[in-house]
């Protein structure tokens, strides 16, 4: 697989190609991690654990981006201090690094926003479990419905 165009035209039996397997195992590992995070968001009721799951999901996305920029036998995209750039040295792709660097700091800022919301939810409802929150919400809804229907009945 010398060029990307070969890759696209590869017949299905190339899946058992050794180079293909080792070249894609990294992506599958990131997907495993991503699914662990997704499972935590979907299946765990505690809101703090949901936020941690979101963080895991986020980290796996970062890794997917960084792994796209990695080049075999490459090195970090920082030139020597005297700017004497050797054309033979392979530098990895710096662009994904830039995107993910800002994303990490934005990620912690938004995570703290989510945590602040959780604190407020706890103060308003007294719980941070999803199941209990749903029950409380439903009770509030039925109460409002009852009051509204009683009011409209009174009007009529």
């Amino acid at each position, binding site marked *: 697989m010398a060029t990307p165009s070969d890759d696209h035209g590869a017949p299905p039996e190339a899946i058992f190609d050794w180079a293909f397997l080792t070249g894609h195992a990294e992506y599958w590992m990131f997907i495993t991690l991503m699914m662990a995070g997704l499972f935590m968001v979907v299946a765990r009721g505690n809101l703090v654990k949901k936020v941690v799951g979101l963080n895991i999901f986020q980290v796996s996305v970062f890794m997917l981006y960084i792994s796209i920029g990695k080049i075999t036998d490459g090195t970090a995209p920082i030139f020597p201090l005297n700017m004497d750039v050797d054309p033979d040295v392979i530098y990895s792709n710096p662009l994904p690094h830039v995107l993910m660097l800002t994303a990490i700091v934005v990620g912690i800022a938004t995570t703290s926003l989510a945590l602040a919301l959780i*604190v407020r939810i706890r103060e308003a409802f007294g719980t941070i479990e999803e199941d209990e929150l749903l029950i409380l919400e439903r009770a509030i809804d039925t109460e409002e419905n009852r009051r509204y229907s009683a009011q409209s009945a009174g009007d009529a």
Partner: protein
Amino acid sequence: MTETILTLILFAMLVAVAFAIIQMRQLFAVVLLSSVFSLLTALLFVIMDAVDVAFTEAAVGAGISTVLMLGTIALTRKRSAERTRSDILPFFVVAVTGAALVYGTLDMPNFGDANAPANAYLRQDYLDRSVTEIDVPNVVTAILASYRGFDTLGETAVVFTAGIGVLLLLGGLAYRRAEDDEES
């Protein structure tokens, strides 16, 4: 080859930590494990040549996020409740999503391929131009602040907005306004 093996071992540890986080019910242990998770993440970033990203992850993950999560737990509760619903349906959803994503990777270029579309054109362009135009050794900083200056301005504004949001939610500003009203 060494890099691949190191990546695999670290990744196995990372997945083990993730599954342990899923199992834990003590929220405090979840926080501790998530700080270990970020340590391992930074190591993987170093291996994948993303030194700047590893730096950021190290600064954020080890100190601040641990402290903030502990602060949240101190204001809410320490243990998560027993889950009554079964995990089968979420597991099915996650498995299907994962299978779809794996199917999507089959068309991707190999890991570390220098001729991949993402690396073939833009990478060389940035590396060549930044030597003459910006003239700083760290290409990541050059791209961050100069070539993608608009993007970074936006990200800074997002961080600022998130900070304002936290202050509004947790009353840093509201308390002060109340005090000012009492004084006047």
